[in-house]
Each structure stands twice: as structure tokens, then as C-alpha cells.
């Protein structure tokens, strides 16, 4: 009888230990998901995202001369144009990328990318565009 009790205690100990390990594991996973998503998922750079989503219209050089422009009714923005690009605030550019051209009274041909890009990735793209135009943030600058 005593032996049985000892065995039960051991078994109980191991069951709780397993649960605890699982809970700790879950806590780490949740923490990673919210505070370090890059550790769980491979992520794309701003240059990757620009290449896949923007180059088709804005071009390999970012000059608005992509492969799709021939029959476009409105030509894409030249991202290397410092004068035009500095006339747009970071917030406006962010909004155009996330919600599309119509959101800033521009062409429907500029799509919304909210479903594929996180806010952090869009912010990264805004910074990337500033490197292409070699211009700073701020309306009218």
C-alpha cells in the first residue's frame, strides 16, 4: 500500500511537471509572438517588399517606369523625384501604401496593401522611399 502511494505521488509530480513545462512553453511562444515576431517567422526587408509590390509599376530604379506603365491612364509616382516626394508627409505616404491611391485622392491603380503588409513593414517602406528620393519628411519641404 505504501509503495502504491509513493508511485501515485511520483506520477502526480510528473503530471504537474509536464503541465508546467507546457505552460512555460506557451508563455514563451506568446511573448515571442508579441515582442519578437521575427524570432518565430522569417520576415521580409523593405527592399524585398518594394521589389515584389512596388517595382511592377514604380520600376526597378523607383523612377515610375515599371513594366506595367504602357497602357496606364495615370502614370505611377517617380519615387526618385525629391521635389514631389518631399511634398508628401510620411503619414500621407503611409496612408497611400496601406489604403491605396483613392484614400489620398489619387488613382485607383495604386492598390491598398493593408492585407499583405503590417504597419511596421509599411513604415519600413516609407523609410525606404525616403532613401530613393534622398529627401526628408514633411509637407511642402
Amino acid at each position: 500500500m505504501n509503495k502504491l502511494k509513493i508511485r501515485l505521488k511520483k506520477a502526480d509530480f510528473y503530471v504537474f511537471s509536464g503541465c508546467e513545462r507546457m505552460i512555460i512553453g506557451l508563455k514563451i511562444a506568446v511573448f515571442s509572438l508579441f515582442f519578437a515576431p521575427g524570432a518565430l517567422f522569417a520576415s521580409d526587408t523593405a527592399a524585398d517588399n518594394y521589389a515584389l509590390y512596388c517595382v511592377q509599376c514604380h520600376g526597378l530604379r523607383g523612377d515610375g517606369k515599371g513594366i506595367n506603365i504602357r497602357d496606364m491612364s495615370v502614370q505611377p509616382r517617380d519615387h526618385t523625384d525629391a521635389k514631389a516626394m518631399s511634398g508628401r508627409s510620411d503619414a500621407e505616404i503611409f496612408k497611400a501604401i496601406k489604403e491605396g491611391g483613392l484614400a489620398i485622392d489619387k488613382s485607383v491603380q495604386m492598390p491598398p496593401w493593408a492585407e499583405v503588409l503590417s504597419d511596421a513593414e509599411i513604415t519600413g517602406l516609407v523609410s525606404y522611399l525616403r532613401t530613393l528620393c534622398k529627401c526628408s519628411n514633411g509637407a511642402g519641404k
Partner: protein
Amino acid sequence: MRLPLWCFLSVFYSVAAHAADGDALLQSECAACHNLTGPAAATVAELRTRKAPDLFYAGNKFRREWLVRWLQQPTRVRPAGFLFLNHIKPGAKSDVVDAASLPTHPALDTARATAAADALMNLRPHDALIAKEKLAAGTLSRAMGEMVFDKFSGCLACHLIEPEYGGVSGPELYSAGTRLQAEYIASIVRTPQAWQPKTWMPDKHISDANIVKIVRYLDTLSKENKHE
């Protein structure tokens, strides 16, 4: 009249052999370039390593009769290749497609094309996405369709609607009505990222009514253009 057992067995074995031939054919002829098992690419870098469109959901996407015909006489569906990024270069006026870099799809004879098409049609991991699309039969004039497709939705930017008119980073759409299942068209327009997380096709939040109009417009286009 009762059919002899050997008759039933010979039909069964010929069907089974056909399916086995098709599966083997996919492995020997297609798997080197096409992903047949999934999952879809999870990053841009991974996408750039893929040589051809994923086929692991081909049975949810294509029309069988188109596959049988096309595999015997392949034509270019994607004017800038599967992934435009791998086939473009700067040009004088704009970026251009580097035609020399575009691969040519091999042609199969009728028996092999039929076996491959049948095997591809068995690849249906996205039946649930297809089942969500309820499309009533109907037609739409080309003018009305173009209004929704181009003016309201901006799809012309990336897709050809005639062999020499439209954008080229996406697949041509003048034969889409004969190439693709109507429900697939509706689903890929509604939620492109449900099919390919890293597709460069945007989710433009197109309304249900306009999705139906786009499906009907592409059907009209394929009948008018007769490019298959």
C-alpha cells in the same frame, strides 16, 4: 445482364493505371519547376526561388479541358514570366521584359496531357475556399465589364485584356474565362492572400456585386477574343 468480373476489373485497373501514370508524370515532368505539394512561399526570398506557378491547388484553379489542350500546345499565360522580378531589366523608356530569360513550357502528347490534367485536377486542398463562392449564371457586356475591371478596380494596370493591351506583371486575362474556374476567379479577387500569402495581386476590397461582374466580364472577354 451481368457483366463478367474480368470486365469490371479491367476497367478498374485501367483507371487506376491512368491515375498512377498521371501522378508519375507530374513527378517526372512537372515537379522540377512547379510546387506540387505546398505550402506556398512564405517570404519574398523564397518566392524568388520558385521557377513556375505553384500547382498544388491546380484542381481548384484550372478547367480540365483547358489543361488538356494547353499541355499539348502551351502558350505564354504570364507575359513577364511566373515572377516578373526574375525576368525584367531597365530599358530606355521603362523597364522591359527580358524575353531571352523566359522559359518555354514543354508540350505533351494527347495521352500524357490527359493523364497529367486528370492528376492535376485531383489536387484540391482549397475546396473550402471554392465552396464559399456562390455565383449565379449571367452575362455582362464588355463595356460595363471594362468599367468595373478598369475604372473602378484598376485591374488593367497589371493584366492584359487583349494580347497587346494592359499590364504584364500578372497573367493575361483574355483567356481566363476558358482557363480558370469561375469560383477560383471570384475567390482570388476576393482574398488573393488566402491562396498565396506572397502574391503581388492586391486585395482591393472589391464588393460582392463587382466580383460577380468581373467574373462575367472575363467570361465575355474569353469568348470575344477566342484566345485559349
